[in-house]
């Protein structure tokens, strides 16, 4: 038997699918929606629809973007000899906030975790390698890969896995310095810490 009428139960179920949302939060959100004026709900629905319609993965770096290639990949002022590899788009945002990094990015959309069923094939990794070859159309050679995955065991494994594939190509591979708390998520690292982590990166 349903505790709530079907449309409400369905909305609660949809909220529960979102990351970090449990039964209680889902109920709270659903009842919040029920109390909203009609036009606010319309705006919300429209925002959801637009993000799916207009946002795509950048075909070069996998960033979320409304133009392909994304603003970083298409910018003439970015340094094309460096690619910084991150787990999620919000990690890119954290690095951009430092204003000290001018290279390109590559977003994996995850990290290796056998427990969660994520192997190398589940990451958006394979399209990194064509970017490393010298006969790329823009002609600029990639000299360094900076791996800025999270300082967690999964992030470390991912960094290590990528380093093992990239190093034989003769490209310098560095890891950002873990001056930041181990086991943490780069999402919560402030600009100063991130800036230090970038400048103190070391060869792996």
């Amino acid at each position, binding site marked *: 038997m349903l505790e709530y009428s079907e449309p409400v139960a369905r909305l609660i179920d949809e909220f529960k699918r979102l990351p970090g949302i449990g039964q209680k939060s889902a109920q709270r959100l659903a009842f919040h929606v029920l109390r909203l004026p009609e036009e606010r709900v319309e705006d919300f629905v429209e925002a959801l629809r637009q993000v799916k319609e207009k946002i795509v993965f950048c075909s070069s770096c996998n960033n979320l973007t409304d133009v392909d290639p994304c603003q970083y990949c298409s910018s003439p002022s970015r340094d094309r000899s460096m690619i910084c590899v991150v787990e999620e788009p919000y990690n890119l945002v954290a690095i951009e906030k430092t204003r000290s990094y001018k290279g390109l990015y590559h977003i994996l959309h995850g990290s290796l*975790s056998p427990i969660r069923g994520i*192997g190398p094939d589940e990451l958006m990794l394979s399209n990194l390698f064509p970017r490393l070859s010298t006969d790329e159309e823009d002609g600029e050679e990639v000299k360094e890969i900076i791996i800025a995955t999270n300082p967690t*065991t999964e992030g470390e*494994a991912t*960094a290590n896995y990528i380093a*093992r594939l990239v190093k034989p190509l003769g490209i310098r591979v560095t890891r950002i310095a873990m001056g930041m708390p*181990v086991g943490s998520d780069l999402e919560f690292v402030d600009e100063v810490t991130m800036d230090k982590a970038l400048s103190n990166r070391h060869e792996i």
Partner: protein
Amino acid sequence: MLLESVAADGFRNLDGKFSCGNGLNIICGNNGHGKTNWLEAIHLLSTTKSFRTARLSEAIRFDATTAIVRGEVRQSGQIVRTIQVILEGNTKTLTVNGKKETVQNYMGQLYAFVFNSDELEIVRGSPDSRRRFLDDGIVSIFPPFVQTLSDFNKVIRQKNKLLQNARKDETPANKVEALLAPWNEQLVSLASRIHKARVRFVERLNEVLERKLFDREELSIRYVSSLEGKGDLDDYESLIAERLSLRTQAEIYSGYSLIGPHRDDLEINFDGREMRKFGSSGQQRSALLSLLLAGVSVFHEQQDEYPLFLIDDIDAELDYRRIGKLLEYLDGKTQTFVTTSKESFVEKFGVDARVIRVAEGLPTGES
């Protein structure tokens, strides 16, 4: 460190507050009235863990949404801090003077060693309880070790899953090796840190261990690495790396991580014989007490302060001869909390002690 008072609300059946004495504190009450709950609350404040359950949500009273345990801790002359553990659902919040703190920063305010019937597993149970005894002891003097242990356990779980997948899917060997490498590399460095820390900790225990405090037989301990006899343990990092690469096939075949400090043990002997197999229940209790007291001494050496010492159901676990020796040893050192249901115990040992009487979870009187 001195626990000046402890208060609880919503934690099991507890309610209220009592102030503590500097030396021996006897928590006295009939069975089922909550004296062990108070000891558990003090343990939670000291270590952020329960000695009864890994699932702290079980400790929240059925009709409450949160459980709070609060303590006033005197660090030194003038500094008194309020520390607090708040349980809500499955989350645990730690505060010092009202400010939220991480486990690593919270630890170090207070620490406790505990003797109860479950802890006897250390001397008579499987190796994992002995590894836990060592790891807890290391964390007591070096809180960041918590992170090393947690990372190590994560790596082992990830690696086991990988091995099991590889076996199930019959993944080609070279591909499995490529997938394993990033986990093994972390395993090597984490395992080396754990090995080194445990070996050093056992050395320290050995330096202070009272070998004949309770009985005539001589107590001895030794850390036994599962890589013993496989090569040079002084160069553990190279040795484990070599063993990992040699044993990959066996690991895939079994579906489990076979190499690492999660397979080590602490050997506990009396007069050269294995305590676990040949010790009487009295000798095992003596051995556990001696080990805990060695832990207390190492803690004191490192921190220049004594931890708390907690003993649950003291007269059910120990005879009066051992209790006498133990309390004499602890006197002037630790702030000690024991629980008992017997008035005769209070009469015999309670002369200079603070006695806290508990009925239905409430402290009803102190003397």
